[in-house]
């Protein structure tokens, strides 16, 4: 396996290239696994308690070995950093063409430290690297910056592909995102804030190289089989047109949306809970990465005839919103028109800001208003004006979004790190406790889906390394009651049974290991969710990994690799002082009964501690402290990590 890591110190302007040794792939697989290790090593020589907005933080971009090889399994690039909004491990994935173009330009990993004295962008082309002035890009949104770079760089040796921040990142908003090719968003954790703090507006790549594969014939055979499996699955045909929007009707049926700050769990607008999106707006499907056999991306163009509200957005065109864009807009904020939902998706991409934390910050405020907890004076203190805070009012939503993106008043400043920190700062400011209206899980991260009936899903919110998150331990076995998968993983059916805590923590652990593998291969999780390979990435995808890297592992060994990757993320957080008490969720999820839907009355506290204990047991971690044990780390070949933790008092006693 041949791979190159580019290191850039923006303070000194030094750039250097290292070969990533084969042994690194043996230990960390690639993609997120290698990103994590690069960050771990960095913080062995730099203060891990540094200000995430300071020059000592590191920003790593990486792409796994399957990405761009023509395997057809989709591509995700990954960014990894210490999160400025949650103060813990941070990472985020996105598709698009940027990740494979980085490989075509001669690199697989980019590690950026320091801080440039003025706005710059990083330019990579066929093995060459330049740090260029970005004064002309500063102040532009991601679409404008991407367009300007495309024009500036021309089409030789290829079209330029970019990673950019928007105004949110420039203002170092904690929940700022990074956008790939102006449309695919690395939303979570505040990567855009880290780049903004380094004065790095963009990375632009052009390349004409290729990717070396250990056994091209073997990979071709795997890829053909994969294609056949995808084509045989009729459910994928529907997914091509709807993407994750296909979940809207199903979530409405079971009561899994997140309505008005999760005071409810079903959409109210007739339009947004219907399949009208497909009928009115869908123009065509497209592939986001050119190495994907599914092509779930869609495009809309608003012509103004769709609804009264659509008239405001005539001519607007962008990617079809995904489920969570819809969940945040039609759910958290109660916007009831598809044109507004679509517009919300576009604006949050243009500003480059995480729509989960943003919507929950705004919906927190709207709930205070709904409950009569905001006086005219309170609003004056927060906004410097008499701000209307009406559910479903797009003008109010945009005004508050603008405040946060530009950190332009007390509200914008308080909530720039999301709803948890915003609510805490506001409570301290007023000397009154408003925390029960803040929706969050680990690290203060929020998420716009109903969690209370789903114990694995809820556990994921409490333990995910990057803060409350749905993409580390994906709870499909339980949410879709996949008894077949429970039998496959555990030889027992309970992981699929919503009425018992049994195997729920175990399911988080097993799926986290699988997802860590997929993220390290560099593939798109939708292929796995639609199950062409039997939901066992350690077996099916493991074969493609072997053809590409020459690293032939048994499924058991690969699952241990996945577990090793998860343990390094955990160790990072343990060094930052996280313990069992940090693996938790907000008061509403913990104690307020689920109000409606198919599973009313559920609260997290019914099963929470039992599930968490089981999770720690499956991980081999200490129940009392939540810390890792020396013996389990040794069994994963992580004695070096255990030594670091032991020296800092972050290893379980005994």
């Amino acid at each position: 396996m041949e791979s190159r890591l580019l290191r850039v110190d923006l303070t000194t302007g030094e750039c250097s290239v290292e070969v990533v040794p084969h042994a690194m792939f043996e230990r960390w697989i690639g993609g997120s696994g290698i990103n994590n290790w690069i960050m771990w090593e960095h913080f062995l020589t730099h203060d891990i308690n540094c200000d995430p907005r300071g020059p000592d933080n590191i920003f790593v971009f990486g792409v796994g070995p399957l990405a761009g090889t023509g395997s057809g399994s989709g591509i995700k690039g990954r960014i990894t950093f210490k999160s400025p909004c949650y103060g813990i491990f941070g990472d985020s994935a996105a598709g698009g063409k940027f990740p494979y173009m980085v490989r075509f330009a001669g690199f697989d990993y980019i590690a950026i430290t320091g801080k440039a004295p003025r706005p710059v962008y990083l330019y990579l082309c066929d093995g060459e690297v330049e740090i260029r002035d970005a004064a002309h890009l500063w102040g532009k949104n991601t679409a404008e910056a991407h367009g300007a770079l495309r024009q500036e760089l021309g089409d030789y040796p290829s079209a330029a592909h970019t990673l950019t921040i928007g105004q949110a990142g420039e203002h170092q908003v904690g929940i700022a995102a990074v956008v790939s090719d102006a449309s695919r968003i690395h939303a979570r954790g505040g990567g855009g804030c880290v780049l903004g703090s380094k004065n790095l507006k963009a990375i632009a790549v052009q390349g004409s190289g290729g990717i070396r594969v250990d056994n091209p014939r073997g990979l071709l055979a795997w890829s053909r089989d994969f294609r056949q499996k995808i084509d045989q699955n009729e459910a994928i045909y529907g997914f091509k047109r709807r993407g994750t929007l296909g979940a809207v009707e199903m979530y409405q049926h079971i009561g899994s949306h997140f309505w008005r700050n999760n005071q409810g769990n079903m959409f109210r607008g007739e339009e947004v809970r219907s399949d009208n999106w497909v009928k009115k707006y869908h123009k065509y499907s497209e592939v986001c990465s050119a190495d994907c056999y599914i092509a779930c991306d869609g495009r809309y163009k608003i012509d103004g005839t769709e609804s009264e509200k659509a008239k405001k957005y005539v001519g607007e065109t962008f990617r079809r919103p995904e489920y969570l864009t819809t969940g945040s807009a039609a759910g958290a904020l109660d916007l009831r028109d598809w044109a507004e939902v679509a517009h919300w998706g576009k604006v949050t991409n243009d500003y480059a800001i995480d729509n989960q934390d943003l919507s929950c910050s705004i919906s927190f405020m709207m709930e205070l208003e709904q409950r009569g907890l905001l006086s005219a004076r309170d609003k004056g203190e927060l906004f410097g004006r008499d701000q209307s805070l009406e559910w479903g009012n797009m003008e109010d939503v945009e005004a508050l979004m603008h405040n946060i993106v530009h950190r332009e008043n007390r509200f914008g400043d308080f909530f720039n790190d999301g709803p948890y920190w915003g609510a805490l700062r506001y409570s301290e400011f007023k000397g009154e406790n408003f925390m029960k209206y803040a929706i969050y899980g680990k690290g203060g991260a929020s998420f716009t889906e109903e969690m209370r009936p789903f114990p694995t899903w809820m556990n994921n919110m409490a333990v995910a390394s990057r803060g409350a998150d749905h993409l580390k331990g994906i709870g499909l076995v339980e949410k879709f009651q996949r008894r077949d998968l429970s039998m496959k993983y555990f030889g027992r059916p309970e992981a699929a049974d919503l009425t018992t805590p049994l195997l729920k923590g175990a399911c988080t652990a097993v799926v986290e290991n699988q997802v860590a593998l997929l993220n390290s291969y560099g593939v798109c999780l939708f292929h796995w969710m639609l199950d062409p390979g039997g939901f066992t990435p350690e077996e099916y995808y493991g074969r493609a990994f072997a053809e590409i890297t020459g690293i032939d592992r048994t499924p058991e060994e690969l699952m241990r690799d996945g577990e090793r990757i998860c343990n390094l993320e955990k160790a990072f957080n343990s060094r930052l002082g996280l313990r069992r008490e940090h693996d938790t969720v907000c008061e509403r999820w913990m104690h307020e009964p689920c109000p409606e839907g198919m599973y009313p009355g559920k609260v997290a506290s019914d099963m929470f501690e039992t599930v968490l204990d089981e999770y720690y047991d499956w991980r081999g971690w200490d129940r009392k402290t939540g810390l890792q044990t020396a013996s389990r780390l040794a069994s994963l070949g992580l004695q070096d990590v255990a030594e670091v933790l032991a020296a800092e008092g972050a290893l379980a006693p005994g």
Partner: protein
Amino acid sequence: MITINAQYQSRFREITGVEKEFFHLEQGTVAALAAQITGKYGPLMTALLMDEDSKSLNSRGTLYLNSKGQRVYLEDDLNEGETVFFMVGIAGG
């Protein structure tokens, strides 16, 4: 003979052209219901609803629930008047 209400979402509804319909079954099982639905709507529905390899309901990207919110399997019994919902099972985004 029992009567079962079948309700369809997204891709299922595209194939059936209706949101819901009733089926009269000699045998009160999910298998009998699936046989009637695939018989009525042909190969596209068969490809969506059935898993050729395992000879069970296709579980990839789909979800079938009874009115109590429990997933149904081919071998499950159905009672008179039961409703079965045919949905896509996808999350995230």
